[in-house]
C-alpha cells in the first residue's frame, strides 16, 4: 500500500509539475494528457494485479479481503461492473465489491488471470460538471482448472471508465493543484477470440 502511495504521488507530481499552463486554461493540455494516461494506466495495472490476487486460489481469505479493500479504493463510489458473455448478450450488473467476491468464490481448484499486452486509451472528454472522462480498454485471459483439467477459459474485453479531476492539496503552506484519476464503471464483455 505504502509503495502504491509513493508511486501515485510520483506520477501525480509529474502531472502537477507540467500542468501550470493546462490549469491556467482549465483544460487538459495534450502533453499533460499523456501524463494523465500514464497515471490512469498505473491504476488500471494495479487493478489487474489485485484481480489476479483475488482470483488466485492460493491467496488466504484475509489477504484477499484486504486486497479487495485496496482495489475498491481505486474506484469512484457506486461504480459497477456490467458483464456479458457470448452466450448471453444482456448485461448483468454487479457492484465492484460484489464482482470481486464472485471472483473469489469461483469453484475452480486453480485460476489463472493474465492481461494481454494490448491496451487502448481514449481521448479525454469533458462532462457537464467540468470533470474529464475517458475509457481504457484492456483484454484479460482467464483459465479455471479443476484438478489437472482445464474447465473454463475465456478472453474478456474490459472497458474501464476513468475520471480525471482537478484537485488541490497543501504542501508546505502552498496550495498545489493537480490532476487525479479515479476508476469508474467497467464494461466486461466476452470476446470471440
Amino acid at each position, binding site marked *: 500500500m505504502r509503495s502504491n502511495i509513493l508511486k501515485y504521488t510520483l506520477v501525480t507530481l509529474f502531472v502537477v509539475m507540467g500542468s501550470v499552463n493546462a490549469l491556467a486554461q482549465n483544460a487538459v493540455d*495534450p502533453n499533460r494528457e499523456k501524463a494523465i494516461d500514464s497515471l490512469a494506466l498505473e491504476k488500471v495495472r494495479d487493478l489487474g494485479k489485485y484481480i489476479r490476487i483475488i482470483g488466485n486460489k492460493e491467496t488466504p481469505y484475509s489477504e484477499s479481503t484486504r486486497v479487495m479493500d485496496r482495489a475498491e479504493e481505486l474506484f469512484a463510489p457506486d461504480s459497477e461492473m*456490467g458483464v456479458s458473455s*457470448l452466450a448471453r*448478450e*444482456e*448485461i*448483468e*450488473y454487479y457492484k465492484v465489491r460484489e464482482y470481486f467476491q464472485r471472483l473469489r468464490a469461483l469453484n475452480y481448484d486453480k485460476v489463472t488471470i493474465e492481461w*494481454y*499486452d*494490448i*491496451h*487502448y*486509451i*481514449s*481521448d479525454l*472528454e*469533458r*462532462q*457537464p*460538471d*467540468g470533470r*474529464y472522462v475517458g*475509457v481504457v*480498454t484492456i*483484454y484479460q*485471459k482467464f483459465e479455471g482448472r479443476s484438478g489437472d483439467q482445464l474447465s473454463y477459459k475465456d*478472453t474478456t*474485453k474490459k*472497458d474501464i471508465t476513468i475520471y480525471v479531476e482537478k484537485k488541490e492539496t497543501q504542501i508546505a503552506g502552498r496550495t498545489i493543484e493537480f490532476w487525479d484519476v479515479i476508476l469508474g464503471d467497467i464494461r466486461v*464483455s466476452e*470476446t*470471440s*477470440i
Partner: protein
Amino acid sequence: MSRLTLLTSLLFIFFFQGVQAQIVSEDEEIERQLLASTKQLNQFFNRFNGEEDTKGRKFEPDDRQYRSERIRKRYLSILFDEENAEFSEDLLKTFIEQVTDKDNPQFLSLRSPEWFAVVNTTFKYKGKEEPLTLYMQIQQEGLGYEWVISDLVFEPYNTLFDKQRGETKEFLHPMSHELDFMNLRKALVKGGSPESYTLADFKPDLLTVFLYEVKMGLLEFQTVNRLNFHFFSIDGWYFQLNNFNRPGYNTGWLISDLAQVNDSQKEALLKIIYDKK
C-alpha cells in the same frame, strides 16, 4: 482473390509490416488480432481521421502523419465490415475519395453533427420483460458534453393512443357544455380511450409518457442488449456502425451499412430508423 482474403491480407500488412516470417504463438496471434480491432468508437474516429498510429498512439497535431491523406486512406479501407456488408467497392471508393478530398477533407468526432446511437434495452413493464429502443444523442451542457435520450420506441405504447376518427369514434356530444360536461365522468375512465376526446391533430409525446412511467416505477430498467450508431455527418452520406465481436482482423466498430443519400432519402431513412409511420 476474394475481397475478404484481400482485405485480411491488407490488414495483416498494414499492422505488421516488417514482421519477419516466424512461428507465432497463440497469444501473439491473439494480440495481433486485438491490435487490429477497432476497440472503441473513439478509435474509429481516430482511425477515420488519421490521428493515431497502428499501435493506437496519437499523433501530435504538428506530426506530418497527423490526418495525412495517405494514412487516412489506409485506415479507411479497414473500417468496413467485410464479412456481411453488401455495399460495392465502387461506393466504398467514392466515399473514401470524398472524405479524404485534399480541398475539403471531412472528419468525425464526438461533437460531429447528425449522428446518434440506437440502444436496444429491456425494461420490466407490468410484470413482464419488454424490449424498448432508446435513441440517444450527444449534447453540450454545462462545462462539457452528455448523452441524452431523444426518442424511444416501445411496442406497448404503439397502440396506447391510437385514436379513432370519424363516425365510429367515441366523443363528447356537442351539447355537453349545457350539462356542465357531466359526461366527462363516463369518458375519462380507466382502460377507456381518453385520447378520443382530444384535438384532431393530437400527437402523444411518448418520451414524456416514458419518463413519467420510469419516475412512477412502472417501467423498470433491466439491461442493455446491444447498440449501434447511425451517421449523417458526412455530406450526402449515411453509414451505420456496429460492433463485430468475432475472431480475425476485421473486428470491433466497423461500418456495416453505407449509402449515398439526398435530402429526401435521408428523411425517409430517418423515419425508418426511428420507426415512424
